[in-house]
């Protein structure tokens, strides 16, 4: 055993607070064994933007699926066995050559977990939440998403129960790709709407 094992790094204040709450709740019998590890594993490995990418690829390949997806996002997404918390009321908004969609939550951090996983830090921090509803064209450009001046921007503030997924445009030159190859092209950012493909 190395000497460092005898002297682990001191806990940070945040680690101490988390450990304190966990210890007290465990003492009260409120934390089932393995619960924390299991929920963490699920969010780290089972959900994430790879799920949304499958939905997008399917919509690109299957016009009838796309129609169902735009008409009832929740049901069409459930066809791919996706759903659950923060995905019970899904609305899918479609990018076109003339329209760009982008999603934000100004009041907290609402995000469609089943299709995109947990939100990245920048989505939850004040700069994005303050600016995306005030100056989306400038902010998108700053984030590397330059839109032609005549392109209409539709910002969706997830302030109630609906969660939004952006359906990006299918990039040109992808005519011969398989569904799984297409899914590999779809980035998280393109489904939030801070990038185009």
């Amino acid at each position, binding site marked *: 055993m190395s000497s460092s094992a005898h002297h682990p790094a001191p806990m940070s204040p*945040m680690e101490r607070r988390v*450990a304190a*709450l966990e210890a007290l709740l465990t003492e009260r019998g409120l934390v089932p064994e393995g619960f924390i590890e299991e929920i*963490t594993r699920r969010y780290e490995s089972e959900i994430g933007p790879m799920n949304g990418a499958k939905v997008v690829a399917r919509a690109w390949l299957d016009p009838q699926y796309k129609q169902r997806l735009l008409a009832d996002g929740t049901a069409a997404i459930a066809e791919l066995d996706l759903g659950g918390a923060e995905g019970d*009321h899904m609305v899918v908004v479609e990018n076109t050559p003339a329209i760009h969609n982008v999603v934000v939550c100004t009041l907290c951090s609402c995000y469609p977990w089943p299709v995109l996983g947990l939100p990245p830090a*920048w989505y*939850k921090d004040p700069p994005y939440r*303050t600016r995306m509803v005030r100056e989306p064209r400038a902010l998108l450009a700053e984030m590397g998403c330059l839109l032609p001046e005549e392109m209409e921007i539709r910002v969706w*503030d997830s302030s109630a*129960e609906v969660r939004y997924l952006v359906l990006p445009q299918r990039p040109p030159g992808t005519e011969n790709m398989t569904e799984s190859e297409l899914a590999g092209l779809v980035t998280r950012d393109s489904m939030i709407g801070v990038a185009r493909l």
Partner: protein
Amino acid sequence: MDGIHDLGGRQGFGAVAHSPAEPVFHQPWEARARALLVVVAGAVQASGGEFRHSIERMEPGHYLTSGYYEHWLTAAATLAVEHGLVTGSELEASAGGRFPLSGPVIAPPVDEAGPDVGRPRFGVGDRVRVRDWHPPGHTRCPGYVRGKAGTVVRVDGIYSVPDIEAHGTARRYEPTYSVRFDAAEVWRDGQRGVWLHVDLWDSYLEPS
């Protein structure tokens, strides 16, 4: 509550620290904090409104200088204390130092939820105006659209009103609408071709 969380359109926060990909949790404690909120919310049967309001009540300087999972931990601890699962002094003793909790609810408790709204009052294409109000409790009506006129673009389901559920066991159900606002009318800055869509409960709206 005109709280620090109501950030839409506020200025001076600088650049977005964008990264195209990142770990789901940056530190192991973030994952544990997140799971503990699930534990506490389940144990005390907290509604979504009560959970969100417990974050909104954080001391504003703390809110702005801490990340999302510190918000969740603060919410979990605050709800645990408010519902009697643990005490603040137990938390500080166990943590061996300060354990900041959120501030008290400043709105009165809601005993009477008022009547449900079973049918949408508005349809797609209707012009509506957001109430120009300042409720002291939890609300999902963002400040930046209050008093502004917009157009209903979608009628969604019937949902529990957060303003009610955050403040007691009473519930009221109302339709929500997606309402489209011209960004130039909201900010009076002449920008063009930008539409802001905000999802709003029926009682946030008046005919326009």
